[in-house]
């Protein structure tokens, strides 16, 4: 088994996949706690569908580097959804549902009408479930992913204390003059960036799992915000690496293998928490 792995690791695209996958897993786990506790998970889910829609538009336009289109489009929608979510709660939810389902439908329609690809359902499947896309990244996309991941981690570390404060108590933060709207905007934009990155790893339908499962697992066992954040980062990286290695050796789809690992860890942590109590 080790020798098979060594053989695979000689291919540069496998090494790229492992590096980028690890980085993406790291940054996708960082905001998980905030997303869960702020009830922003619905925005995350909606955005992943938007990213799918944007990806199909990029495919139809035959852009060489589709991230250059998908990224701004998703960020724009993140900002719009945040604004919509500010009014009455129902309206915000409805807006998310409208945009996300709309993006899915229009995306599939566009692909059917204009796609020049011979393997349409294969393309759709890999965009939704990321079956092989992490292994087919070009060198420039690898660099772009790496740079963005590092940027997300740096931003998170710099604003860690403010993100904590705003997540725990928006009203208190606003009362003492913290720019809550600004930080919410920052969180939404970073989520959009993470989603577009994670689409390469697990596909657009499974992104929420990548973001939320490590945070939920860590919240079973740990008591401080810092421990929960660190633990979910470690879990996310471990599951992503483990999932990718298994999928290389066993030939399973990368995205769903990683998410299956995340689910297994969540169940394990829930069990441990129950025995402790």
């Amino acid at each position, binding site marked *: 088994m080790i020798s098979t792995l060594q053989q695979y690791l000689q291919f540069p695209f496998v090494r790229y996949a492992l590096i980028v996958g690890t980085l993406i897993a790291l940054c996708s786990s960082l905001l998980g*706690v905030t997303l869960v*506790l*702020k*009830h922003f998970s619905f925005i995350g889910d909606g955005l992943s569908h938007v990213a799918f829609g944007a990806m199909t538009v990029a495919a139809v336009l035959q852009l060489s580097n589709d991230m250059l289109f998908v990224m701004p489009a998703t960020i724009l929608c993140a900002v719009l959804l945040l604004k919509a979510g500010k009014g009455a709660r129902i309206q915000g939810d409805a807006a998310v549902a409208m945009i996300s389902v709309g993006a899915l439908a229009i995306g599939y329609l566009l692909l059917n009408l204009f796609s020049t690809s011979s393997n349409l359902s294969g393309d759709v499947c890999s965009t939704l479930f990321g079956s092989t896309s992490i292994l087919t990244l070009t060198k420039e996309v690898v660099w772009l992913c790496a740079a963005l991941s590092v940027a997300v981690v740096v931003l998170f*570390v*710099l*604003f*860690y*204390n*403010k993100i*904590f*404060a705003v997540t*725990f*108590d928006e*009203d*208190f*933060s*606003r*009362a*003492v*003059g*913290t720019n809550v709207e600004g930080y919410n905007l920052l969180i939404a934009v970073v989520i959009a960036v993470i989603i577009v990155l994670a689409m390469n790893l697990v596909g657009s339908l499974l992104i929420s799992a990548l973001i939320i499962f490590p945070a939920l697992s*860590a*919240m079973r066992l*740990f*008591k*401080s*915000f*810092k*421990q*929960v954040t660190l633990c979910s980062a470690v879990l996310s990286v471990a599951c992503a690496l483990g999932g990718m290695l298994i999928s290389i050796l066993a030939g399973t789809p990368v995205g769903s293998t990683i998410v299956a690992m995340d689910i297994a860890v969540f169940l394990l942590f829930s069990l441990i928490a129950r025995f402790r109590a």
Partner: protein
Amino acid sequence: MALITCRSLSLGYESHVILENLNFCVNPGDYLCIVGENGSGKSTLMRTMLGLQKPLSGEIVLGDGLRESEIGYLPQQTAVQRDFPATVWEIVLSGCQSRAAKRPFYRRSDKALVEENMRRMGIEHFRKRCYRELSGGQQQRVLLARALCATRKLLLLDEPVTGLDPKVTAEMYALIANLHREGVAVIMIAHDIAASVRYATHILHIGASVFYGTVGEYQNSAMGRKFLSLEGGDAA
């Protein structure tokens, strides 16, 4: 000079006016209780004083060198907080966020302030405990310590004893009275009129008619007498 002055304030949402032409001020050393029935606009008034909401008309002026970021606020607890994975230390430290507004990390002086305020609230031995595992009274002490990190002059408390049992309620009132004696001005929304009259220096009663004055004036006013006897009747 007054810490906070409200002049001909009107409150409400869009076209719906809740309160009109409200005038009062809070001086250093004051302990003001805001009383009134549910829906009379107590929380709206407090949110407006904190700048979380704009008044329909009128103005709120801060004085005596008080800046908007130096008001300590104890909000009512939200559902999110009850299940939040954070230690006491982390939460109290977040009270220093306005002191560290332009910096990404907290300084040693911020952490010293956290220590001081945890001691004042008697929660220093809870520092590593998880917030969601504490009792209601302990959680309120944590949030009060956080508010104290943001201010030395003025505390705004939104029903700080809601959901606490009588013994813990009495402890909480004593704690607040202590802070008042130490020189922190207090504005508190209260349900318990008897405790308000006992601890406060001033009463603001809002509703169909408005009263603002000292506790003595309130007890002698027609409005105060009516309300006090009503509450007394309820308790008996």
